[in-house]
């Protein structure tokens, strides 16, 4: 790589891309990096250059999509430039989570992209054989009995309506209007009192009364908060095993969970 002081100007050398994931995948492909490796910081500059070039040509929503990914990439790159430290504070955890989400989305997007390519092949081979599909010759049509619809006009209209109506009949879901707002400190209070009483609860038990996904998320963040402030210890036999939360205020006992996210 040569370092030249002045910028050589931005050049579009990619195929048409649709959306930030598409662009990112193309950049990763161009650098011959594996998506599953930590390739993101290497393509960050390219990605941001393209986002900048997008400028006024894209609409607000589209630009936002690119900017969200660009910001995530920048964060990740910045994190890699700094000396690696203990992952302790929430920002680091958030960053790791952001990276994982981005990877997961990229992998997901790539999987659908591969399927789409397969669809293209299926589509082109499926249509090579055209079936014989012809009308009855007139001499045979004459043999047929007179046609009957078997319905009256009113019934015919009902059939038409059934065809045009989006199926099944829509029912308006109202749940989303009352999505509870969840405060992490509140969840910490709830869980503290329960843990103080029970001593030890699995995470599933702690969440047994949650009605919404967002409450589970709130409790999980609450557990992390309590772990950080040394109120609880965490036990987990192995990755993906059941997580148990123990009440252990101010103790040095950190539990047996493999929480090192640096792996």
């Amino acid at each position: 790589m040569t370092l030249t002081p002045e910028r050589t100007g931005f050049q579009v050398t990619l195929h048409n891309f649709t959306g930030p994931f598409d662009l990112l995948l193309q950049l990763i492909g161009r650098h011959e990096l594996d998506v599953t490796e930590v390739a993101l910081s290497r393509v960050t500059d390219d990605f941001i250059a393209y986002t900048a070039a997008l400028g006024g040509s894209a609409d607000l929503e589209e630009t936002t999509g690119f900017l969200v990914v660009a910001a995530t990439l920048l964060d990740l790159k910045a994190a890699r430039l700094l000396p690696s430290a203990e992952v302790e504070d929430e920002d680091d955890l958030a960053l790791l989570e952001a990276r994982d989400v981005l990877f997961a989305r990229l992998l997901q997007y790539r999987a659908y992209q591969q399927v789409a390519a397969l669809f293209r092949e299926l589509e082109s081979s499926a249509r090579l054989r055209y079936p014989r599909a012809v009308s009855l010759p007139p001499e045979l049509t004459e043999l047929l009995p007179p046609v009957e619809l078997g319905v009256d006009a009113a019934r015919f209209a009902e059939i038409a309506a059934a065809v045009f109506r989006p199926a099944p009949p829509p029912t308006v879901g109202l749940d989303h209007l009352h999505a509870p707002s969840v405060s992490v400190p509140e969840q910490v209070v709830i869980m503290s009192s329960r843990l103080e009483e029970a001593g030890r609860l699995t995470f599933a038990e702690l969440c047994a009364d949650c009605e919404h996904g967002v409450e589970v998320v709130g409790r999980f963040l609450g557990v992390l908060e309590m772990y950080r402030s040394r109120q609880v210890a965490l036990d987990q036999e192995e990755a993906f095993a059941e997580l148990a939360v123990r009440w252990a205020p101010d103790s040095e006992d950190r539990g047996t969970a493999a929480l090192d996210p640096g792996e």
Partner: protein
Amino acid sequence: MSLPDDELPGLGREAELDAAIEAVLMVVDAPVPATQLAEVLEQPAARVTTALERLAASYAGSPDASGSAPMRERGFELRRTDEGWRFASRARFAPYVERFVLDGQRARLTRAALETLAVVAYRQPVTRARVSAVRGVNVDGVMRTLTARGLIVEAGVDGATGGTLYRTTELFLERLGLGSLDELPPIAPLLPEVDDIDEL
């Protein structure tokens, strides 16, 4: 519409020309003039006519001009009419063909046919592709049946897509007991939640 030349099988050999003609005639739902075949196959009309005659003779069990062994008489024939050439069942098997046609036939329309007819009735004139899109299934066969039964007819060509347009017939009104299309019951009241069925 034009295809890259390298995708086209060459038709220099007679066997290949014959096969290409067979492929087209097997699928097309109307007699095809030799001149139109010649144009599409990019061959001289005389050569195509010779090929058609050769094919017709071979289906009848005559040895073909190439001197190869005669084929047995086939159950189909290549029939030449004023409008062009088309495949047809050989006349002497007509009893079986008629029995087959009547066997599967019911006087009453199927539910699928009624639904397709309903789309044509309320959206006419309408292309087959449009009807197909509304119903989410291929309607080619049903549209042919409705045409053969005299309930719908072709009504020109859609300017935008080039697709054939269809409308309902007098027979349709008669079978429904209506004097005119204006008497079709409105379906908007049956679709309270749909603002504009054209969107569908």
